[in-house]
């Protein structure tokens, strides 16, 4: 479990969370646009 891999995992996690948040936001916006 090298330091490199830890940072990699954190980075992917952060990106995943951000993407998920944006995707949900987009879903809500689309509903409101209908």
């Amino acid at each position, binding site marked *: 479990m090298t330091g490199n891999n830890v940072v990699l995992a954190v*980075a*992917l996690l952060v*990106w995943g969370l951000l993407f998920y948040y*944006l995707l*949900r936001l*987009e879903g*809500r*916006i689309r509903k*409101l*646009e209908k």
Partner: protein
Amino acid sequence: MILRGILLLWIAAGIILAFTWAPLVPVLQETTRVLYFHIPSAWVTVLALGWSMVASVLYLYRRRLEYDDHAGTAAELGLLFCIGATVSGSLWAKAMWGSYWNWDPRETSIFFLLLVYVAYLALRGAIDEPRRRARLAAIYSVAAFVAVPFLMFVVPRLYDTLHPDPIINPRGKVDMDNRIRMVFTGMLLGFTGLFYWMLNLRVRVLRIERRREDQGRPMEVAGA
């Protein structure tokens, strides 16, 4: 939908490759990885500023509030990415050269951009009426446009003479290896796509809010 999926995988791939496949730059060692986030952040900062300024000018010409939505949103996003670039740069400086802040020309430039963003957003925050806010913010945007070249290029150069930069900027060596260049370019594109998506989302929210206010039923989009 497909585009979102592509963006997800694109950036994820970039992150993975940045940590595994791309080689290290000899001078930078492990800190090489930072440049895949730090420089794209700085790039988006500048892109956002340009977008905001163009939108401001378009507003002054066409007077459609949508242009001001773009101007304000791009500035908010620009501030976020600017903070990201500044913080990542500072951490990188600490790892590389032992101190968080040196007023090195590039650090100074990004700090000035931060000031411009904060000032612009503060000005916007102090005006309630949408059309006046759009107009005055646009005027400031144009004024900032002439100040930025002086801030970014001239002022840092002035202080070169006072505080000669003893630190070798490794930037010249970085883009030589092909793999590095590929991941780097990939991340640049990825960050640009991310910026565009976030901008698009926020502008659509503002459009909805305005439509609802016109219809007499103001409502906030939760989480926006």
